[in-house]
């Protein structure tokens, strides 16, 4: 029997699908998906899956590290803190003694400073310039890659949606084939008890092979807490056989179908049962139908 169409589940799957598509890309690309989602529920779902991905790393047993590893890191941090400003501030270069400030005693021994220091300074600036240029190029390439990846994502989403639509179309096709096949019988289910609103109804289509069936139900109220509706096929001896359970949501049409039906079915009943269903009807019947009509 097919499941009830659940738009929330499809939305969650679509978000997860998009997140998984980005799993091969940078951490930014993964987190940026959150920025692209505007709906609060969608963001929550995305965030939960992102944290799930983060938790995966805890599967690996931790590895011990030598204290030197941390010492090296802290030394790097310290040097980066000290070197950081000096890379951009010319004050460091200017602090070296200039030829005008040179004392007579220094004159002979420091002549190489005349060309070595300016050369070193020039090299430093050239290297800084080159590094800056390379950084800009790298950033541009990253942006291009991310942009192309986003486009690929969009194409993929469209392809996924097309596949979904194709799936739904196939489902509609098969139901249409059933309800328009020759020898198809139609049985109307009508409300019979208080839990069912007066305008609730169901229509059961049974193919000529008496096996394939399709049931459409409208207007039933959502189940009370801990309860679900259960479909029963009843044979000539009055023995009920369960056809499955469902829990309708407001405004969502319930559609059930299957390729098998108990032999000798003469009536269909829907009852309110404990969640998960009962071995035999125990709750009040809400819809019932026993008059089948051959329409084609």
């Amino acid at each position: 029997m097919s499941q009830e169409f659940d738009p929330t589940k499809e939305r969650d799957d679509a978000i997860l699908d998009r997140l998984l598509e980005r799993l091969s890309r940078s951490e930014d690309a993964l987190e940026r998906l959150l920025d692209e989602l505007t709906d609060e529920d969608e963001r929550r779902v995305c965030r939960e899956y992102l944290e799930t991905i983060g938790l995966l790393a805890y599967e690996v047993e931790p590895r011990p590290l030598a204290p030197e590893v941390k010492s090296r890191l802290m030394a790097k941090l310290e040097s980066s803190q000290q070197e950081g400003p000096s890379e951009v501030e010319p004050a460091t270069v200017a602090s070296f003694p200039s030829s005008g400030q040179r004392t007579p005693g220094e004159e002979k021994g420091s002549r190489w400073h005349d060309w070595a220091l300016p050369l070193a300074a020039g090299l430093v600036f050239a290297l800084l310039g080159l590094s800056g240029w390379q950084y800009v190029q790298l950033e541009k390439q990253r942006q291009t890659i991310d942009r192309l990846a986003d486009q690929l994502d969009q194409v993929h989403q469209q392809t996924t949606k097309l596949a979904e639509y194709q799936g739904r179309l196939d489902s509609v096709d098969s139901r249409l084939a059933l309800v328009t096949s020759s020898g198809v019988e139609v049985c109307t289910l009508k409300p019979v008890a208080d839990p069912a609103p007066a305008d609730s109804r169901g229509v059961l289509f049974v193919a000529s092979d008496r096996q394939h069936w399709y049931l459409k139900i409208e207007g039933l109220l959502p189940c009370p807490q801990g309860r679900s509706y259960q479909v029963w096929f009843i044979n000539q001896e009055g023995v009920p056989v369960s056809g499955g359970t469902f829990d309708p949501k407001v405004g969502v049409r319930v559609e059930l179908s299957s390729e098998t039906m108990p032999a000798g079915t003469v009536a269909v009943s829907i009852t309110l049962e404990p969640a998960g269903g009962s071995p035999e009807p125990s709750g009040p019947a809400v819809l019932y139908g026993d008059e089948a009509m051959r329409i084609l």
Partner: protein
Amino acid sequence: MDPADSASPGTDLKSFDDKQLVLAIRDGQEPAVSELYDRYSNMLVALSYRVLGDAADSEEVLQEVFLQVWNQASRYDPARSSVSTWLVLITRSRSIDRLRSRKVKERTATAAQKENPVTHESPVGVKHVFRQEQRKRLQEELAQLPPEQREVLEMAFYRGMTQSEIAGETGIPLGTVKTRTLLAMKKLRKALSDEIRELL
């Protein structure tokens, strides 16, 4: 994060939560990096090692990660992820970048498998990150996944492979790869709902 939560010199950083530590790092406090390192380095280097299969490389990645945290702490957004997930994602990305540049995927995978993690001593500080029983629970949840679902999840997570690449390497149809990965992630999200709630 409230800037008022930031550490002042002399504050006991051990009492800080992860977000407060990142805030302190943003303010240029080196001891906060040291504290964050103590909490996460063993786990992160293990993750990098699992990807790269090389101890020296994974230690270098660890250095890159914490340098990035130091230089880009202002880019951390608590609305996007927890600190631990942020660190995991950075470590994973840097490791996979290095893996791709080396192009020695087969060798590293073999090396990683040869490593017997049980022989490691339990490192100090791990209790700050994730209690051992919780780790076991996660391992159990992963062990409960059908092998085919676990396989595609590991290829995506540890090797950074796209779903098309996984389909190409395993010979499994792309749709099946997607379904298996989706199912695995959905099961884990459900099974780890308590842990996720703590991180949000």
